């Protein structure tokens, strides 16, 4: 086990993948000599060369579209989108090409492309640098979408994503890049927990609290705080956003009878709505209360002095837990 930051864990996972398979090729803006704006690819071009770690011109659709061509040729491209808000120029190539070519060609053409997206807020950036666009992609068939919440998962899941024959969007919570944790670099990604499985992070009995990416840490902190008040929260890290591992969430809700889902993305049409609806369909008679969503607001990502109002924090999550439990909360007295 080694102590390392989240960013270093991804770097180490990428290094392993580059070592293990000569068909793995990294592409993106500034990922070579600079090592990426977050230094996630630091040192990789130096060690693997400019043909394996490619500094590309500044054109997101081209980065994605040429990755499609490389995949046609048998490569496994790993592309970096520099910031979440820059993914939109590549949207067409992702949803119309990357997602659909396997289906379109009846399985003849594989698209094992990994799309790394530093996402989410909390770092005081200007606009277009703090967005949570995951729902656009969870809605698109043919894509797998994951988000990691700790260095060990960051290390393992990036390798699983690269090994996957399906395209994978790998959402990296950028405000956690500097968090440290233990990483077992000897772990076999094939034998580790599959990337499409959720994980119970903290066991509990009163409320199921579902989170992913940057909010897993916040959810854990909320569970710790709630425990002081005698409330037992079971925290689930979804890990996979498409598909969601509903079996794990369902088992938890059958036990607790209450569901709170939290994410940074806006509420309407977000993943929280999907989780709430699916769990309601699957275990309606086990629910003691309506599922609660604690999310970002349906607004453009706000300027940084106000972002902490937009992002679900520990207190807003606990307020949501109170709603699920029927305890006094900020909406007490409101109907509907």
């Amino acid at each position, binding site marked *: 086990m080694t102590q390392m930051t989240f960013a270093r864990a991804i770097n180490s996972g990428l290094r392993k993948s580059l070592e293990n398979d000569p068909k793995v090729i990294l592409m993106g803006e500034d990922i070579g000599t600079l090592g990426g704006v977050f230094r996630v690819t630091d040192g990789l071009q130096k060690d693997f060369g400019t043909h394996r770690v490619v500094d590309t011109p500044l054109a997101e*659709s081209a980065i994605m579209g040429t990755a499609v*061509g490389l995949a046609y040729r048998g490569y496994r491209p790993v592309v970096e989108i520099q910031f979440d808000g820059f993914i939109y120029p590549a949207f067409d190539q992702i949803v119309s*090409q990357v997602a659909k070519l396997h289906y*379109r060609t009846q399985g003849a053409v594989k698209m094992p492309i990994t799309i790394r997206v530093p996402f989410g807020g909390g770092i005081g950036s200007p606009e277009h640098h703090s967005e949570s666009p995951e729902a656009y992609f969870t809605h698109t068939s043919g894509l797998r979408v994951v988000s990691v919440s700790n260095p060990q998962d960051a290390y393992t899941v990036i390798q699983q994503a690269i090994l996957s024959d399906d395209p994978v969007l790998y959402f990296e919570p950028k405000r956690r890049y500097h968090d440290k944790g233990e990483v077992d670099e000897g772990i076999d990604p094939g034998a580790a927990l599959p990337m499409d499985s959720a994980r119970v992070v903290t066991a509990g009995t009163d409320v199921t609290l579902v989170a992913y990416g940057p909010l897993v840490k916040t959810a854990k902190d909320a569970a710790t705080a709630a425990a002081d008040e005698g409330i037992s929260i079971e925290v689930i890290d979804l890990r996979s956003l498409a598909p969601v591992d509903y079996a794990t969430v369902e088992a938890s809700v059958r036990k607790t009878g209450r569901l709170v889902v939290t994410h940074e993305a806006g509420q309407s049409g977000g993943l929280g709505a999907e989780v709430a609806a699916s769990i309601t369909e699957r275990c309606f008679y086990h629910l003691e209360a309506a599922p609660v969503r604690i999310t970002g607001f349906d607004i453009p990502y706000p300027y940084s002095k106000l972002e902490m109002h937009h992002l679900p924090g520990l207190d807003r999550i606990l307020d949501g837990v109170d709603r699920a439990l029927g305890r006094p909360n900020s909406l007490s007295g409101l109907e509907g």
Partner: protein
Amino acid sequence: MSTDRNLIQLITPAGERISHPEFDPWVKDIGDEQLCSLYEDLTVIRRIDVEATALQRQGELGLWPPLLGQEAAQVGSGRALREDDFVFSSYRENGVAYCRGVDLTDITRVWRGTASSGWDPYTVNMATPQIIIGAQTLHATGYAMGIQNDGADSVAVTYFGDGATSEGDVNEAMVFAASFQAPVVFFCSNNHWAISEPVRLQSHIQIADRATGFGIPSLRVDGNDVLAVMAATRVALDRARHGGGPTFIEAVTYRMGPHTTADDPTRYRDANELEDWAAKDPIQRVKALLERKGLLTDQVRQHVHDKAEAVARDIRSGCIGMPDPEPMDIFKHVYSGPNSWLDRQQDHYARYLDSFGDPAGATSEEGAR
């Protein structure tokens, strides 16, 4: 402003073979027999197009994008390719597909609606045709970067229309191709119309001159001259194979028919324009050349006619005889492995279908309830 570049031409519209010191050497192997063979290809491809258009009119195809008038651009380039080159085309390159050896039934598969891709791209080294305008130019460039990494000398070739040159993807593809000196050939069939929009709406300079701004050498060729197209394509392929990077070819041609069978060009196009281009017909000029050379014997005529009719019969019977896919096929190949969301939906839909008992009833819109 750019200069008005003359077209590279080796056969005049009247069927006269004219010399071109720079490009003649590239087609010096095209003797009488090869010329007859090209004439056969052009004729067969037009016949395929006519038959497929008829099939659409008869309700056998949902839609068809005719290539009438563009046969020489497709045959000249398609026949210049090596087997290990890889094509990324738009939806109109059915003539190129024929040259690549795509099965005749497979050519109509997508338009009949029984599959999203008519063929396995790796069996003919031609990607499934692209409907999003210009998206395939990036795929070709990426594929070419892969060729480069592999140290191979094959070439990626991408086909697109004049309208596509307005798309961001085509411009980004040229940036990448030039930056990495990728072995890719950009083949623009300037057929003068992007549905109802004339080429002057896409570009105020000659399309071939756009490439120059990206640092990509370009050729402007008479797209209705099969020999000139072949020569230009061979020049571009040769450059790519020998590390010279990308080349842009503008094949100046004309779409004689509608954009697709859903389109009505009489609403936006002057009949005189059509007449002018009919005089430059790509098949007539080869025919005239063969006649001048005394090569168009009754035997050749008969052979080409029989081949075209046989192909038409095959494409018709293949199209009409194509079995409908099974309902549960819609779930296949979305992912390469299990996906819990989709597996559940598939399971539920199978149960729903099973609830009818009679498989025929399950697909009827009325159902059996």
